[in-house]
């Protein structure tokens, strides 16, 4: 399993990149608006802008290649995952989560599990996530209210989500796919002890 330490949360990285991009865009707008009073021949402007565009193209192209190289090694899918220490079956229903250790061979509609489960820290846990009715989304929140992992719960399919719980404590499961009127009230708890 490939891991790259970014020294910051994904949320923070997303915030910094997006904010810098927004600042850049706003700066260009302000620059264009404040300097448009001067008149310059369109051929000369074209020459300048095209030159800058060429440089921008090279920078953007290089950034895209580097970012693809890094990010495509961090995929959450099965073929990029390691050997799990423990397996948990998760079945979503309208509007509750059912969890049980081990692999279940029951039909999702007959699956009986609990909305609470206790798991060990620092172990690679594999969640086999499916649904008995409609689409749901199994999202794991830590005690600080940050999402640490998620996958869809889709009927007729089983998604495999792997996660290592670094810290002890209670992690909450929220449904992040709209699944009907009580969707915002569908919770479960994972105790890490």
């Amino acid at each position, binding site marked *: 399993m490939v891991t790259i330490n970014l020294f910051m949360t994904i949320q923070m990285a997303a915030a910094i990149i997006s904010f810098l991009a927004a600042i850049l865009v706003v700066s260009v707008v302000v620059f264009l608006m404040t300097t448009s009073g001067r008149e310059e021949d369109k051929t000369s*402007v074209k020459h300048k802008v095209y030159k800058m565009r060429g440089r921008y193209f090279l920078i953007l192209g290089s950034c895209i290649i580097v970012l693809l190289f890094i990010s495509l090694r961090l995929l959450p899918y099965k073929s990029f995952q390691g050997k799990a220490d423990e397996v948990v079956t998760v079945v979503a229903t309208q509007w509750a989560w059912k969890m049980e250790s081990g692999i279940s061979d029951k039909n999702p509609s007959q699956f009986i599990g609990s909305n609470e489960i206790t798991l060990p820290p620092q172990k690679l846990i594999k969640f086999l996530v499916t649904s008995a009715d409609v689409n749901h989304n199994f999202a794991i929140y830590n005690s600080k209210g940050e999402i640490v992992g998620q996958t869809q719960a889709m009927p007729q399919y089983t998604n495999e989500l792997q996660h290592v719980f670094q810290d002890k404590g209670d992690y909450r499961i929220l449904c992040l796919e709209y699944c009907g009127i009580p969707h915002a009230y569908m919770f479960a708890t994972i105790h890490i002890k």
Partner: protein
Amino acid sequence: MLQISPVEIKKQRKFVVIWSITFLIVFPLLILLGLLMRMNQGEMIKIGMDKFYMMMTLHGLGMSGLLFSMAFAALWYLISTRYAKLNIGLGYFVYVLILLGVVGLAIAGLMGKFAAGWYLLYPLPFKGATWAAWSTGLSIISLIVLGVAWLAGMLHVIYALAKEYGGFTNLLGWQYLGRKEVKRELPPIVMIATISLIPGVIAFLAGAVFLVMNLLQYFEPTLTFDPLLLKNLVFFFGHTLVNITLYCCLGWVYALLPEYTGREWKVNKVLVYSWNATLFFIMFAYFHHLYMDFVQPLPFQVAGQLASYFSAIPATVVTMFGVIAQLYHSKVKWGIVPVSFLIGVAGWAIGGFAAVVDSTIAVNKILHNTLWVPAHFHTYMLTGVVLFIFGFLFYLSHTKEEQYKDKFAKFGFWLFVVAGHGFIATFYSGGLNSIPRRFADYKGIPISSTHYTGALLAQIAVYCIIALFIGLFIMYISILLKLGKRRQIPLSQLADG
């Protein structure tokens, strides 16, 4: 050479004015739904979960449909008055069908409490539904009616342009790639319209398959379909619809901005390569909506990220630098139209960056279905597409002199822009704080920080929406006072082929 008579232009103008007034009536009503939803999330009012999700469904379907319709109507107007003859009878037929579809959806929502979300994520419309069963059927049929209307309109525009410009490949600008001299110049708006509408037609066909499958299940409940297939179909349809709404708007930016800068904006090889690449990327970027469906084949997931990343190249390198080349040291007078276009392009760029960030699979596993998602699409819809539309409405209703003088409208515009970005900032903050989207309220969340942060951000959003409404109201006064007035047809609107 094409000749379009002043009588025809007058008829087409009347048609687009009818569209514009329809837009101006429906748009604030849909914002009002958004306001009520944020008030409920902010615990300032209590509307009930069933009503919340009914509003969410109407807001999502309504906004995406309305903005596409207005973008398409403006495109229709500019094409029909300059570049090709379009059948106005068909235009009115499309308009009436769209109205019928909208009335159907409104009845399904307001009377039947239909609340399956804009995307009717299969099999939700048929399982655990608390809304009236008939409202599901009515919604599906209404969406089919809307799809037929849009499809007819899009096919007619493509056909009329192909007829005028000597074939379909000419519309894509391929004649610029050969060594032969191009006999007839292709206006950029024609190429962009084609490149927007082709994926539109394909996506609407995918949407039609999705809706017919749903309709079959509605009439025969024992049927079941593959939920992953249907999810692919609906997101291909929905993502493409939103994407081409923006591209339709860019079509008229290419056509109208040169009227203010005095610098022509012509099709050349780079533009052709760029927009043809865009046509390709539009078709595959939608896969990024299914990243969290781990069972989706891996090549599709990777294709989603590649298409999303690479789509940034033509968008920024060609169109945004094109806008810079238009405006830099141009001595443009900053009337409300060029300002709307520039700030709209900025909104598109900011939202686009945020979208590319979220289209990274490794990031999406954290941001998926949080408020980051409505954050980025509201950025390029509310502070992109909507500004382009208002730019067009001012172009339609005001002479250039009136645009420069109307400081009141400019004040309303800037208030709208600032409040709009403030409103969107609450979504971005929500996404970064892992606040889930599509939650009627956050009261039940067993993590107090998530509950309180979500509610607080929603409250701030409410004040931003109120400010945004004031800005909107000011622009409305300015537009409505002039929209109905008879205008002399400017020479630039007579056919230039």
